């Protein structure tokens, strides 16, 4: 039996239905984006005509970093829940006794986290750009709309989300406690943000080549993360808590 997108879709749709009625998920998906749209907007509106160039860079860098916290943190919390949460509810065994392959299960879970995360992250970024265009000082607005900054946001949003998802699922597959898994998941989502932070604050000047190079490296890390998670997804361990 080969890989079936139909089974991936079944998991994906089930997850989205579940999210819709899960107060914790709704709060997570609302709280972080709200926080990370308010904070950068404040940073942006603090910029006035007399703000020095260095200070402007700092404000804009911080604003853009806040934006990227969304794809890093929102999926980490959800992904860290997705396996251990099913184990706690007792729903994992009925799913694993179906013909589903572990890759289908994992891709379904990952997509169910990735799609809403990207939607929210790009929506929030769009709102931020709108605020910048309408309310920000012209200097601040033009800094926000700088090509390299836009490229960093567009490229790194899915890549950071990918890292957070695989790290979260890996932790979830090895955890016995939902809360511990989520705390570890958030911690695991942070390392790639360091590089993005350095670029946002112009410590590393984000040239096109550098951005693409780092994006490629993160893509590779995401791919390796997927392979590692698939390898560590062991039905026997998940059902009995013991390695096969």
């Amino acid at each position, binding site marked *: 039996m080969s890989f079936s997108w*139909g089974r991936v879709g079944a998991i994906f749709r*089930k997850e989205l239905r579940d999210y819709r009625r899960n107060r914790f998920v709704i709060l997570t998906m609302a709280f972080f984006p709200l926080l990370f749209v308010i904070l950068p907007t404040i940073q942006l509106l603090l910029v006035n005509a007399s703000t020095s160039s260095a200070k402007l860079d700092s404000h804009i860098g911080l604003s853009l970093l806040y934006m990227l916290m969304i794809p890093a943190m929102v999926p980490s919390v959800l992904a860290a829940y997705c396996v251990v949460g099913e184990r706690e509810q*007792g729903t994992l*065994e009925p*799913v*694993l*006794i179906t*013909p589903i392959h572990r890759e289908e299960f994992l891709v379904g879970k990952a997509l169910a986290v990735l799609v809403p995360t990207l939607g929210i992250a790009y929506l929030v970024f769009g709102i931020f750009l709108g605020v910048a265009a309408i309310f920000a000082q012209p200097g601040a607005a033009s800094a926000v709309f700088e090509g390299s900054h836009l490229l960093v946001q567009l490229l790194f949003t899915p890549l950071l989300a990918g890292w957070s998802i695989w790290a979260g699922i890996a932790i979830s597959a090895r955890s016995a406690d939902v809360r511990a898994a989520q705390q570890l998941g958030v911690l695991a989502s942070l390392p790639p943000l360091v590089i993005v932070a350095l670029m946002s604050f112009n410590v590393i000047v984000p040239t096109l080549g550098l951005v693409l190079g780092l994006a490629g490296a993160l893509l590779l890390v995401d791919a390796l993360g997927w392979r590692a998670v698939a390898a560590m997804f062991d039905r026997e361990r998940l059902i009995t808590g013991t390695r096969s």
Partner: protein
Amino acid sequence: MGDDAAMPRRAPSRPGHDVMRSLRSAGAFRQHLEITPEPATQVAGGADPVTDTPPLDGPEGKPALVVEHLTKRFGDRVAFDDVSFEVGYGEVFGFLGPNGAGKTTTVRTLGTLIAPSSGSAIVAGIPVTAKNGPAIRARISLMPESPGLYLRLTVAENLKCFAGLYQLADARYRIDRALQAVNLTDRANDLCGSLSKGLRQRVALARALLNDPAVLFLDEPTSGLDPVATREVHDLIASLRERGVTIFLTTHRLEEAERLCHRVAILNTTLRVVGRPAELREQLFTRYLEVRVRAALGDPGRVFNGLPDVDSWAQEPSGPYRLAVSDPDAAAPAVARALVNAGADILSIAESRHSLEDVYLKLVDEDVEAKRR
């Protein structure tokens, strides 16, 4: 084979076989009938005890389950050891044992959730290997002890998800049939979290029936249910049995096994016995006739000694005589004649029957004694 109405011969259940159709015809669910009633099946008011054993072989000449010297160890701990048995198509096979005996681990192993440490098994005609896992899982269903439903999803949404996982082409039709089968059509849009435990168990059974499994594993299906919900689940299982669905039922409720199963196996890490409940009773216990007379016999030895099929006799402190017999049906008339000839007023002559519980307790007690030694 005996009563065809109780155990109709039929093709083995397999993907595509219309299992749910039969459920609607049975007992408590007959109000949903839109099909021809089954002949002489009667399960309303509690499942009838099984009196017959179905054929072991399916049309391919192979049993539904073949287990040979199967063993599972977790490190130093042995979950079950050297287990061998066969289950025929259309058979309801009870798997009994105390807590920790290895019943659930056996089911998970046969369901390819757990890899065996040694031995082999064939499930629905497919050898249990890691590679064959998805193919086996497509042909079986498992209803675990806990229903394992998505509580924030409705009943129908739960079933839709699993129809997708089984890649069922006619998902909507199958979901409708499954809901009708467990009499939950009117609760299809209720959130599972709002259902009682008994109703959740019925949803779990509907989910297990979605793919028309060749082998249906039921792991403690009535655990924690109240008597009414238990009876409903028994009726459902009995109606599946009537239609010849192969069921592997793990339980430690002995009356459940005795009522529903064609054969039972008793597991206590190793497999202690396999057979029909009546056979097990005969294997493990001497058969007795209990004789009650109005007044004590003057010389019971003269009455009972030498009677055909009577091996020995004794009088119980409360008065009745207990006669060890090899064949109660043959011995009873001779005993009655002897008593009449002796001038005794007979109150009753009855076979003293051992229950499956007696069989179970005897075997488990033997294990406890053996461990003590």
